[in-house]
């Protein structure tokens, strides 16, 4: 049983007013694959490095299992880490790289050899055990870095953007392999990435960070379906959710030349914060085309992106007055009959496809 917990963990860099990580509170279950995701500078790497013991913790407690490891040196934490640049030891062969931790721990030679062999077999590295890292390709180096971690049989794997040095195709392959390997080994894993696709495809749960603050931690589907705030809504999903601020008029908002009614709870919530506007969000895939003249959002198409299986129309919402118009919108359209550049089309938000966020705080306003 290896759980990991961050309890109100804070890291302040000297000379910075804002903490790099601010009261991070996270419980990671045994065997869970947790992904920390966010834009650069959000504190995701700092959080991981605090768990590794490579970064001081200013406040709060970090536990691995029942052990308080907050101030333990890295070597006493029983963790393995895969670095972004792999940090392979250039003067050692692949086999020695993978066996280094065991050698430091004083394991007998034949046990080291056996475990390195096992790991090499899993990772298809057997022919390369005698080579030096510089004689390997990028993908092979990545696997050696993985091998160095799994040979240890540690309590927790830490991975800091391990795929960012690979080309796009290899990244997709390796992504699947790492996720499968983790499931097979069942080792609790914390994985850092800035790529939301990686986060969504690999994680059991995904924790979204921004400016050192945890925004939301949930399963990928839940993040997508029920984003907690504007930031998560805009960060998760590709292309990103359309977000536009709209003025409240009666029981709805004026958007794209049409009247969009709001759920009663949203109107009440907006009235509570004495705000006249609300942020409306809808995903490109929540839009469908309707015949011209039917009620809907008018959009003038400026660009069409055809990807084969799907197509996206980029454009601006049409509006009849100065407020809440001209917003940029992306819509998923039928790839068989895409609109032409410059065409005016009418779109409808599918039922349940609209999200409403407080224009003040960015929090999602509850529906129902």
């Amino acid at each position, binding site marked *: 049983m290896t759980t990991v917990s961050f309890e109100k963990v804070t890291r302040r860099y000297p000379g910075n007013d804002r903490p790099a990580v601010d009261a991070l509170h996270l419980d990671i279950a045994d065997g869970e694959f947790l992904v920390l995701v966010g834009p650069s500078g959000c504190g995701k790497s700092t959080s991981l490095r605090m768990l590794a013991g490579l970064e001081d913790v200013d406040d709060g407690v970090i536990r691995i299992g029942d052990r308080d490891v907050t101030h333990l040196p*890295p070597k006493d934490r029983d*963790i393995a880490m895969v670095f972004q*640049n792999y*940090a392979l*030891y250039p003067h050692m062969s692949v086999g020695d790289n993978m066996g280094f931790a065991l050698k*430091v721990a004083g394991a007998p030679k034949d046990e080291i050899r056996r475990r390195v062999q096992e790991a090499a077999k899993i990772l298809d590295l057997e022919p390369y055990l005698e080579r030096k890292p510089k004689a390997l390709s990028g993908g092979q180096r990545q696997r050696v870095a993985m091998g*160095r971690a799994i040979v240890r049989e540690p309590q927790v794997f830490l991975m800091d953007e391990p795929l960012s040095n690979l080309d796009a195709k290899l990244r997709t392959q390796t992504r699947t392999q790492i996720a499968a390997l983790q499931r097979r080994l069942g080792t609790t894993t914390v994985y850092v990435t800035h790529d939301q696709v990686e986060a969504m495809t690999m994680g059991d749960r995904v924790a979204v960070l921004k400016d050192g603050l945890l925004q939301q931690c949930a399963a990928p589907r839940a993040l997508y379906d029920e984003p907690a705030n504007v930031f998560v809504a805009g960060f998760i999903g590709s292309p990103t959710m359309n977000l536009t601020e709209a003025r409240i008029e009666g029981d709805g908002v004026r958007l794209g030349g049409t009247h969009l009614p709001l759920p009663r709870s949203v109107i009440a919530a907006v009235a509570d914060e004495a705000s006249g506007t609300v942020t409306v969000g809808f995903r490109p895939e929540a839009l469908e085309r309707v015949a011209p003249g039917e009620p809907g959002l008018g959009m003038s198409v400026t660009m069409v992106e055809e990807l084969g299986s799907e197509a996206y129309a980029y454009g601006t919402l049409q509006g009849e007055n100065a407020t809440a118009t001209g917003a940029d919108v992306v819509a998923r359209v039928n790839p068989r009959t895409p609109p032409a550049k410059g065409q005016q089309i009418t779109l409808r938000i599918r039922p349940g496809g609209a999200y409403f966020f407080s224009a003040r705080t960015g929090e999602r306003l509850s529906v129902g």
Partner: protein
Amino acid sequence: MTLSLNWRKWLLYAGVAAVVAYCLAPFYWMLVSSLRRTSDIFENSPLPTHLSFENYLAVLDPSQAFTRALLNSIVVAGITTVLALILATFTAYAMARLEFRLKRLVLTLIIATSMFPVVSIVVPLLKMFVGFGWINTYQAMIVPSMSFTLPLAVWNLTAFFRQMPQELEQAAMVDGCTRGQAFRRIIIPLAAPGMFTTAIITFIAAWNEFLIALTMTNKPEMQTAPVAISKFSGASQFETPFGSQMAAGVLVTVPLVIMVLLFQRRIVAGLTAGAAK
């Protein structure tokens, strides 16, 4: 097109040849002169008309105590190199990895100390060492030599350590090493080329040191080779023993040249490390 390319190639070779000739000419003349007979020493022929080893025999003659001077040089330069390298390695690693206030200033001060003209501090040093009773001792030559070679060694190694990714030590620490073990097992082996280059540069500087060695010694048996050469005496008081000085110069230079040639690949690796990943 091909013609102009050819021309450029020839010009390049001519340039290289000129530079090489310019650099090697004094050594060549030293070598040639050392092989002339004493009576032919002022000849201008490019090769000695009468090949003779009498200068070498004279240098190695026990009366000149030159072998003892060579041994002194080896001791002084060797100990200087080892001590300077150990000190510089630790200093440079701290400089490369620790963040502290005024680090820039400390590094600047370190390099500034190497800019004092030796001549200006040799008299105070002499006075101090007389007080210590250090005249005619090895430490009187080693300690000043170290202070002159350390700044360069520290700078050289700091640059070398700095270009090593920090993740290497961090990976080692996650793999179960203490900071010290990570330094010994990962950083030192990787820093070997840089340390080697630094060692050679330090050794050459200490080996060629003249002013301090001349000032701090007056017993012939404590003199280093450069000092001994300057004190060679000719057959008469009015004759400068050019021949044996040249021969001694060759004997002093040859070990350095052999050392550099043997290790030149590692030295080049050390000097250019980090230039390209």
